[in-house]
């Protein structure tokens, strides 16, 4: 586990993430469609486990494990249901509480945007740690924060690039997110594996 300085290799990680996505594009699109539809239909209650499912698939691809993940493997996220659900619930509630600040004229909205970006960057590896190392949501969040803290701006840059790529599909009435969101997951999975390394087999 790395908690010191990390060399953030933008180009290399984005390239590897794109390759992972491109090689399994059909599986990614269907899995992403399932994840988004179920998350929206359940008012966000299942966002955590569905995202955990996508993360699980990305990690299996990064580790080049056989058999390759299938579209139904998005439901593997339910193996981490409680922790992923709590991760989304607790941080969602915290963000909602912080968003009250936006009621303050002028500065309020700016503060909320800055805090939101900082939180997203600090927690970018939280769900990966829950899925990969089977950690509880709070230690996973704190570990992610500790790793990101000394390398905040490089990781912020990586997250911004990944999110821009991942959300560019939103231009097409939001439907394109189904196609582009898994690219962001793949890029972050490659980054996670490079930062945290491969865990020894149990």
């Amino acid at each position, binding site marked *: 586990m790395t908690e010191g300085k990390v060399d953030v290799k933008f180009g290399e990680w984005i390239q590897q993430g794109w390759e992972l996505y491109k090689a399994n594009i059909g599986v990614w699109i269907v899995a992403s469609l399932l994840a988004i539809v179920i998350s929206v239909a359940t008012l966000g209650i299942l966002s955590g486990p569905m995202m955990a499912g996508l993360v699980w698939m990305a990690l299996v691809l990064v580790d080049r494990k056989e058999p390759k993940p299938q579209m139904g493997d998005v439901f593997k996220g339910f193996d981490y249901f409680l922790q992923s659900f709590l991760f989304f619930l607790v941080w969602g509630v915290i963000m909602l509480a912080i968003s009250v600040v936006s009621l303050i004229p002028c500065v309020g909205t700016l503060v909320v945007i800055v805090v939101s970006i900082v939180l997203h960057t600090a927690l970018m590896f939280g769900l990966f740690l829950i899925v990969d190392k089977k950690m509880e949501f709070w230690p996973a969040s704190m570990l992610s924060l500790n790793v990101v803290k000394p390398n905040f701006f490089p990781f912020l840059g990586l997250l911004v690039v990944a999110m821009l790529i991942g959300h560019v599909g939103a231009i097409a009435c939001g439907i394109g997110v189904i196609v582009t969101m898994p690219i962001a997951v793949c890029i972050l999975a490659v980054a996670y594996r490079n930062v945290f390394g*491969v865990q020894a087999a149990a």
Partner: protein
Amino acid sequence: MNTVQDQSPITPLAIWALILGIASLVFCCLPLAIPAIICGHLARSRIEQTPAAASGRGMAMAGLIMGYVSVVALILACILGIITAMTIPAIIKMWSDTPRNECRGNSGQCQVAITNQQGGGL
């Protein structure tokens, strides 16, 4: 490192709990929420009894949570509906009475003015 969990098969009750839980939220339907809760509890107890033979704890818990959320949402919707049904007629009555009350008030004022005028004239 092994991220893939080799597991026992998922119990069908857990899958049913998840499907019914999602359907109960989508259709806001109590007859789907209650079976979701029942299936969720049954699946959890079955998994606890035979952990080697059955899995799907996460799906069962998801079904349970969505079932309970649906029930709570429906109860809140019923309470809101009853409160609305009780208050709206009173509000409508108040609105419809407002011009009449204003008219009565104006008539009273006119009456006072006429009385004063007559008193002053004398």
